[in-house]
């Protein structure tokens, strides 16, 4: 409809028919005239006339349209005003009706709430012990104003009572005034101290474990070095083997010395045998001297006989002289041989004496050496055995110390458990500190103070425990830890 009104208001309803009919008329004239110049002029004139007719008709159309619109507008306005007046009247009536109902309902609701409030107030008064409830309960309240006036009066009385009770309680609690502030300041300090102690303990225990490990390693190295040095009876190295080899070598030396001494005794026996030969030589020298004496006597007799023979025996006397000379020479040789043999005997005797002396000295030296070597070897063997025993004891001690260190490692794990327990204690201290901060903040903002739920607090603390020992300690039960048995669960 609006589109149609707009269409006509824009004069398209007048312009379209006129221009279409004008165009068709002009076209008809041109066609009927055979498109001659006169026909075209007539068609053009027809178009001009049509345009003029359009402007005249447009003017008339708009004037009449304004008159109609004005008329319609006046009539519509009057109708609307009448409708609005009727609606307003109806609305006012319904609003008054609804509001009346609501006010009644709200009044009843408020009265119920006030009655409940009075009941709760009575309970509150009971708790503070400042009101006479039976007397109040017997009172019949008829209106909200009465309720409110009564409540106001009773609130004033209760506030006075609470103030008096608060003053009494403050005076009673004077001994712990400032405890909250003290806790707020001291709790973080306690937490920091516990944290610091826990960190120091952890660091120290880690160092302790490292040192125990170092000691154990050094002990192992010492045992290995000792074993390598001492060796054992079933191994082919070490001091025991060295002693055994040395004993064999020394024994071979003493055996060689004994053999040498035996040879020396054989040589002395040979020299002693020589003395018998010198006696024979001495006898032979004596026999030579005797033969020389007898020969000399024989030569003397021959010389005597030759002298008796005179000149015939002159030649024989020469021979007798020569024989006598030979006898003298033989006698000299015999004497020299005797002297030489005697010298040889003396020399051999001296040699035998010295050799005997040396041989006996060598024998004593050898006996002494064997005794000393045996003694030294015995001492060394005993020392080696003691060293081997010491090494064995050291090895046993090492095993025992390793077991001890293993136990120490178990005990050192206490730090981890203590650390976890202290961490939870610190967390609970911080939680208490935050709680006190919140309470203080709420108090500063004028809000009512919340009551600490102790049971809930302890229950939440219980939930943080990871060890059964913590729970046992929480419940005040003795909690002993079995460190000899490791709890292992395989899945």
């Amino acid at each position: 409809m609006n589109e149609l009104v707009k269409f006509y208001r824009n004069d398209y309803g007048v312009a379209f028919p006129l221009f279409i009919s004008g165009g068709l008329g002009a076209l008809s004239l041109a066609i009927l005239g055979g498109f001659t110049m006169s026909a075209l002029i007539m068609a053009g004139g027809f178009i001009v006339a049509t345009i003029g007719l359009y402007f005249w008709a447009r003017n008339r159309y708009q004037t009449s349209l304004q008159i109609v619109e004005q008329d319609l507008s006046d009539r519509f306005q009057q109708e609307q005003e009448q409708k609005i007046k009727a609606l307003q009247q109806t609305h006012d009536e319904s609003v008054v009706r609804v509001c009346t109902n609501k006010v009644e309902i709200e009044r009843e609701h408020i009265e119920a709430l006030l009655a409940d409030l009075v009941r709760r107030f009575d309970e509150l008064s009971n708790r503070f012990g400042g009101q006479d409830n039976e007397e109040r309960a017997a009172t019949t309240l008829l209106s909200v104003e009465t309720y409110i006036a009564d409540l106001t009066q009773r609130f004033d009385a209760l506030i006075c009572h609470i103030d008096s009770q608060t003053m009494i309680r403050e005076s009673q609690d004077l001994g712990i005034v400032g405890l909250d502030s003290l806790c707020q300041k001291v709790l973080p300090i306690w937490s920091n101290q516990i944290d610091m102690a826990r960190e120091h303990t952890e660091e120290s225990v880690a160092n302790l474990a490292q040192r125990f490990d170092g000691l154990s390693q050094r002990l192992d190295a010492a045992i290995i070095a000792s074993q390598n040095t001492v060796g054992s009876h079933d191994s082919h190295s070490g001091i025991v083997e060295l002693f055994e080899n040395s004993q064999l070598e020394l024994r071979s030396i003493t055996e060689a010395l004994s053999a040498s001494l035996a040879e020396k005794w054989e040589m002395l026996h040979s020299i002693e045998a020589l003395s018998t030969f010198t006696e024979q030589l001495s006898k032979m020298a004596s026999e030579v001297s005797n033969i020389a004496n007898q020969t000399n006597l024989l030569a003397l007799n021959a010389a005597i006989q030759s002298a008796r023979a005179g000149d015939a025996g002159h030649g024989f006397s020469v021979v007798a002289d020569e024989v006598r000379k030979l006898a003298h020479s033989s006698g000299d040789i015999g004497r020299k041989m005797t002297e030489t043999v005697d010298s040889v005997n003396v020399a051999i005797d001296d040699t035998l004496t010295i050799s005997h002396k040396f041989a006996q000295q060598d024998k004593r030296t050898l006996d002494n050496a064997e005794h000393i070597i045996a003694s030294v070897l015995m001492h060394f063997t005993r020392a080696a055995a003691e060293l081997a025993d010491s090494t064995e004891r050291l090895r046993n001690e090492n095993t025992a110390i390793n077991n001890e260190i293993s136990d120490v490692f178990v005990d050192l794990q206490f730090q981890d458990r203590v650390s976890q327990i202290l961490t939870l204690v610190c967390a609970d201290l911080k939680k208490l500190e935050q709680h006190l901060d919140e309470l203080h903040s709420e108090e500063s903002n004028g809000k009512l103070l919340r009551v600490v739920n102790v049971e809930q607090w302890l229950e939440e603390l219980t939930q943080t425990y990871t060890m059964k020992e913590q729970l046992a300690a929480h419940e005040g039960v003795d909690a002993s830890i079995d460190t000899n048995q490791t709890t292992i669960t395989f899945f």
Partner: protein
Amino acid sequence: MAKTILFVEDSASVRQVMKTALTREGYDVILAVDGRDALTKLDGTKIHLIISDVNMPNMDGITFVKEAKKLPTYKFTPIIMLTTETQASKMAEGKAAGVKAWIVKPFQPAQLMAAVAQLVMA
């Protein structure tokens, strides 16, 4: 060739004790201070066994196990939880995550080493 074990523990003393005990048994030991640190150690290195604590800062042991099991290289690596935790719910959580054994501190090194050898050889 020595077997390699990754040990995850926030307590320095227990780390030192375990390093000593495992090294004396001939294992190569890689140490990590929490779950997040341990994940950085899982860089493709061949690891034959993982031993982890449960309650640790930054990333707890159970979360670490779940993350480790997502890595293809370590999907079948056996894991031992070494902890003071004794709650059955936590143990069930660990079992569901793929843990092979749950050992409660304090532990005897010899008994722990027996369990370690059993899982390393498995």
